């Protein structure tokens, strides 16, 4: 049949409000659009006129899943603007906090949001009927992530303990040690997670992406590194806007980001993995190779395996930090404001998160710019949809709709962050 319309009013298991439209004419896809209609949130406007120390608390409110990412990018950008660097155990504590968020966010997506797609269930409650042990493991692993964030950040969601310069207070050694045994269990549970998701049926779908992520010679990227791409970009965060730009498109309240010279690019777990495989600990590299994804993986459906590998990394890294922890003398370093601009990127669970701020001598924010991962991935999601539907026009409307929802969920999009839910509308003419 050449002409028909498939419509899904609400695509569940994504964060935020949006829609999707794919138009097919004469058996050819002519358009694939991610329509985002969540109202704009004006956070950059709220920040102007506020004190530089308020940025981590204000921006954390952008997202209930990745508030730590916003606190980290904003704190680092302010510290850079003020000529301060947070080092030693305080830096390790920030990395630990971020590991907690990665575990929490990745486990939520792998088990609760994405696994039902592959196993043919509507949601995690249906999944739990047949796989109770799997869902119990997920709940326990997610709680481990939550508890790390609560210990270092003060509470699980929108942490209150991080600040520009470090923390308000730091955990005691014995509080950290109490997480050790649980993290050892977390490593085993992550290995079981990798084994589970490797058995899922994956469509044959590889794309030629320009991957963009942070990269650092000494570590798998979380808080620091240069921005690199699989097509030759190697820049500092201060150069971000020289190489990347955002544009307004009519069908989205979220800006679309692109590489100025080339267009769409891909951020998130696949990008980090492909650009930083050698920085993963041996246990994660071995598990990934055993899972059959090799040192590079270009099938976005297999991002679920990469998220599981990154969960293993985060548990391993967190354990390492805890085992080497010595309580720092001071919970933070002093940061005095000065007229300056600071740019910083960190790796949110969904990918690169860019912040830049200009402040004056009194530390008042004069300008702020935030570019979250979902804004950056919008073009690549639309491109994946275009090519996936083009390759799979023989599928029934029902199956194609189901798969298109998966194409979007491969990116774990956080539409609330980018503006900024999902309606699916496939029109065949």
């Amino acid at each position, binding site marked *: 049949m050449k002409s028909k319309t498939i419509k899904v009013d609400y695509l569940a298991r994504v*964060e935020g409000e949006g829609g999707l439209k794919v138009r097919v004419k004469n058996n050819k896809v002519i358009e694939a659009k991610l329509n985002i209609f969540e109202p704009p949130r004006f956070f950059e406007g709220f920040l102007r006129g506020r004190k530089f120390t308020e940025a981590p608390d204000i921006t954390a409110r952008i997202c*209930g899943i990745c508030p730590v990412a916003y606190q980290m990018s904003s704190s680092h950008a302010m510290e850079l603007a003020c000529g301060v660097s947070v080092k030693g155990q305080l830096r390790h504590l920030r990395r630990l906090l971020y590991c907690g968020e990665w575990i929490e966010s990745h486990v939520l997506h792998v088990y609760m949001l994405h696994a039902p797609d592959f196993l043919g269930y509507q949601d995690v409650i249906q999944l739990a009927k047949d796989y109770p042990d799997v869902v119990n493991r997920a709940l326990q692993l997610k709680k481990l992530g939550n508890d790390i964030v609560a210990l270092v950040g003060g509470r699980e969601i929108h942490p209150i303990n991080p600040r520009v310069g470090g923390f308000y207070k730091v955990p005691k050694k014995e509080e950290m040690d109490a997480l050790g045994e649980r993290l050892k269990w977390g490593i085993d549970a992550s290995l079981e997670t990798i084994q589970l998701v490797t058995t899922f049926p994956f469509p044959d779908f590889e794309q030629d992406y320009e991957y963009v992520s942070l990269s650092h010679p000494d570590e798998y990227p979380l808080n620091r590194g240069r921005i690199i791409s699989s097509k030759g970009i190697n820049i500092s965060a201060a150069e971000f806007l020289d190489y990347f730009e955002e544009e307004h498109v009519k069908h989205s309240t979220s800006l679309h980001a692109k590489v100025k010279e080339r267009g769409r690019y891909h951020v998130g777990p696949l990008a980090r993995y492909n650009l930083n495989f050698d920085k993963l600990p041996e246990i994660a590299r071995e598990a990934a190779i055993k899972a059959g994804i090799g040192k590079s993986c270009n099938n976005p459906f297999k991002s679920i395996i990469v998220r599981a590998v990154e969960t293993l990394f985060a548990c391993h890294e967190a354990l390492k930090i805890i085992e080497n922890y010595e309580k720092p003398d001071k919970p933070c370093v002093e940061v005095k404001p000065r007229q300056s601009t600071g740019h910083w990127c960190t790796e949110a669970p969904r990918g690169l998160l860019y912040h830049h701020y200009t402040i004056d001598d009194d530390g008042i924010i004069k300008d702020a710019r935030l570019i979250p991962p979902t804004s950056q991935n919008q073009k690549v999601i639309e491109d994946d949809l275009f090519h996936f539907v083009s390759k799979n026009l023989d599928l029934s409307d029902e199956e194609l709709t189901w798969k298109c929802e998966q194409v979007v969920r491969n990116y774990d999009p956080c539409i609330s962050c980018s503006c900024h839910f999902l309606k699916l509308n496939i029109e065949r003419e």
Partner: protein
Amino acid sequence: MNNISNVVVVGIGNEFRKDDGVGLYVSRLIREKIDRDIKVVDGVPDGYALIETWDDSSRVFVIDCAASENNSGTTYRFDALKEKIPGDLFDGFSTHSISVVDAIELAKTLGRLPKSLMVFGIEGNDYTPGTLLSPEVKMAADQLVEQILDELK
């Protein structure tokens, strides 16, 4: 109550959205007023975390704001082990998470329900930004606090 130490009171909601914070108002007031050691949880990060607040020996009271067509201040009481809670009475935490009703359903599926689970809802009216409860919601909340304290005597 023979074993008071197994009591868990969970308040749910957003305290910065006026009536949506009624569950937290109730849990905090119970903490203030009760003269025995019980576990009070002021808010959970998401529906999944609700399941983690109890074990199979717990006697649980969950209080949340309800949103239906009834008058604000209307109080609902459900014995979650015996009756089905209308799915549309309590809103979800977010599109990323699951609602109170779904969390209870998940706990049931996993065989992780507590010994007793009472769910209370107070019909809200005003969800605009702010921290003050509507008068009729506050009155219903104060009555519910006394009711739960009586049950715990």
